[in-house]
C-alpha cells in the first residue's frame, strides 16, 4: 500500500515536470507569439501548482483541512486542532498573489502583441526576422 502511494506521488510530481517541459518547448520553439503567450500561462500555473503541492501535508490520524478557522471564539482547543490538521497557508497566500500578478502580465503582453501586429503585419517571429 505504501509503495503504491509513493509511486503515485512520483507520478504526480513527474507530470508537473512534464508540463514544465512542454511549456518551455512552447516558449522557445513555436513561431507564433500568441502560442508563446499560452505557453507562458501554462508555465506560471505549473510553478504555482508546485508551490501549493509543497505546502500540502497529511496529518496523523486526521483529515487535512483548509487553513481557515470557521469558529469565532478562538479558544485553545480550536487552535490546537487547527495547527495539528490544517495545511500550510503561506504557499497559498503567495500563489494567490502570483495568480493576480500573472493576470496583469498576461494583459500587458497581449496588448504588446497587438501593437506588434500593427507595426509588422504578422505575429510570426520567423517572418519578422526577415523584415
Amino acid at each position: 500500500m505504501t509503495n503504491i502511494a509513493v509511486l503515485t506521488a512520483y507520478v504526480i510530481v513527474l507530470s508537473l515536470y512534464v508540463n514544465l517541459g512542454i511549456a518551455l518547448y512552447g516558449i522557445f520553439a513555436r513561431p507564433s507569439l500568441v502560442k508563446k503567450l499560452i505557453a507562458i500561462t501554462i508555465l506560471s500555473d505549473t510553478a504555482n501548482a508546485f508551490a501549493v503541492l509543497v505546502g500540502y501535508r497529511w496529518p496523523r490520524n486526521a483529515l487535512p483541512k483548509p487553513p481557515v478557522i470557521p469558529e469565532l471564539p478562538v479558544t485553545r482547543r480550536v487552535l490546537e486542532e487547527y495547527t495539528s490538521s490544517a495545511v500550510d497557508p503561506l504557499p497559498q497566500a503567495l500563489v494567490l498573489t502570483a495568480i493576480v500578478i500573472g493576470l496583469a502580465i498576461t494583459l500587458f503582453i497581449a496588448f504588446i502583441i497587438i501593437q506588434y501586429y500593427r507595426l509588422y503585419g504578422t505575429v510570426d517571429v520567423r517572418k519578422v526576422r526577415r523584415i
Partner: protein
Amino acid sequence: MIVVLEVFTLALLTLFALTSVVAAYLAIRERDLVRAVVFSAIQSSMYALIYYVLMAPDIVLVYIPVSVGLIPAVLLFVIKKTERYEGE
C-alpha cells in the same frame, strides 16, 4: 478509513495531473490558435481541481474566474485582432 481517503486523494490528483499533461501537449501542438486556447482552458480547469483537492478553496475561487474565464477571453480578443493560424 483514513488510508482509503488518502489513496482516493492520490488517485484523483494523478487523474487530474495526467489529464492536464495531455491538454497542455495538445494546446502546444495545435496549429489552430482558437482550439489551442480551448485546450489551455481545459488544462487550467484541471489545475483548479488539483488546487481544490490540495485543500486550497480560496485559490480556486480566484483561479477559476481568472484563468478559465478572463485569460481565454483576452487571448481570443488578441487572436481576433491578429492571425488565427500559426505558421502560415
